[in-house]
């Protein structure tokens, strides 16, 4: 096993609170929800397991969190009607990661209902075709606004960009990289510090 302190990125003499904070941050970073429909989901899962093990090793009263990463499409969530055999088949292919087969099935289905748009959208998302995916999943949501599964998929896609932006801001990204503004700030700071201005 790797050094749990290194895994959590804390020093050897970190307090329980520091460990907990670092652990929570890392869980957020590698959470299965962020890697849903992502070819790297398994690697993220391994990383998370490593983090969980490290935390368990360091936390005195370990309350192990088990994250469930089975984002299976086989059980249609919130479907008011029973899904047809064909859509079940498409979901199965998506679960297996067999995208060409799923694509072929979808092309053959003539019933272009909300479910069809949703599954086509998920397929596009898996391919990395986000422009396409967002349009299709939006269509699915507008056709069946009460479907929680569609809504959730759309939220995941819509939130990815803002989440990345937040991470950048957290690292000191400054949108108004405005020299004048910076100089003025300096001037104000000097003004506070130095009585001769």
């Amino acid at each position, binding site marked *: 096993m790797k050094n749990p302190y290194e895994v959590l990125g804390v020093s050897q003499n970190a307090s329980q609170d520091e460990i907990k904070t670092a652990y929570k941050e890392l869980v957020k*970073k*590698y959470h299965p929800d*962020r*890697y849903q429909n*992502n*070819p*790297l989901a398994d*690697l*993220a899962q391994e*990383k998370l397991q490593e983090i969980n093990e490290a935390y368990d090793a360091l936390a005195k009263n370990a309350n192990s969190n088990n994250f469930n990463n089975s984002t299976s499409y086989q059980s249609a969530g919130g479907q008011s009607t029973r899904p047809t055999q064909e859509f079940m088949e498409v979901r199965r292919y998506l679960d297996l990661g067999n995208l060409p087969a799923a694509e072929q099935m979808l092309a053959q289905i003539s019933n272009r209902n909300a479910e069809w748009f949703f599954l086509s959208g998920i397929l*596009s998302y898996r*391919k*990395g*075709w*986000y*422009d*396409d995916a*967002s349009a299709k999943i939006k269509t699915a949501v507008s056709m069946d606004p009460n479907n929680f599964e569609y809504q959730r998929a759309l939220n995941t*896609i*819509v939130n*990815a*960009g*803002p*989440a*990345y*932006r937040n*991470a*950048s801001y957290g*690292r*000191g*990204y400054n*949108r*108004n*990289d*405005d020299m004048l503004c910076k100089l003025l700030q300096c001037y104000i700071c000097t003004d506070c510090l130095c009585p001769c201005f």
Partner: protein
Amino acid sequence: MQGYVIAEKSELKMYEYDIYSAYYCGICKSIGRRYGQIPRLALNYDAVFLAMLLSAIVEERPIIQKEHCLVHPIKKKNIMRNSDAIDYAADTMLLLAYYKLKDDYSDEKNLLAAFGQAIAKPLLHKLFHSEAERCQKIEAHLSQLADLEKQNCASLDQVAEPFAKITEILFSENHLIVKESDRLILKQIGYHLGKWIYLIDAFDDLEKDETKNVYNPLFSRFSYKKGAESLPAFKIRIEKQVEFNLLQYLSEISKALALLELKQNKGILENIIYLGLLHQTDKVLQKGNTKHEESL
């Protein structure tokens, strides 16, 4: 590649900046050593990202030497030496630069490009020979891309796919990577970076393409009617959706990077992914938009 992939220099630490520059000069020297002086003109920072990324995974130990260089004859520069990742990134960049010249010539009958291509070809014959298999793949994808562009393809995803596949190949199919999981992550980074470059380049070229009256995927995707709508208005209309796509790619790249075990260069790579690429995105999206220009 067009040189969009750069670090946010103001946010680099001093020593990081030195390393970053040493990679840049290292690539330049690597080209000069193996292909002569002229191809060195093709150098840009995109290759530095690839070199640093591979360097961080394969755990090589490059050394920094101080050497003279043609461009800066007085001052000695830091040069990164003894790195396979640098040689590989240099080759990759030359291939891309060569194909870009070829493409410019066939697209626009640009004589300078024709001239450059004619000069480059014999100089790079060694490279074409050693990279024959990869060149074949790249050429196949490029001819797909040319077909899609000829058909005025209106699907952003479809038209960006061939270029994304090329960068995917260049990032992941090389002899330096040993771990299969690393290869998978680099595939993901290469693919999404390719899509980001293709799209940001398309947005950046809107004015130029409108003047020349040539294909631009964004005109087709968002049905631009020349004359019926002004270009600035068109840009404002599509900005949100373009930004959505660009950030989607960057989000995927950042998630993939988080899974890599980086043995060096971590700060610089994160700077490029989280700050440099986002800055480029915002800059290109706001170009020519007077509302934002006032604050700059």
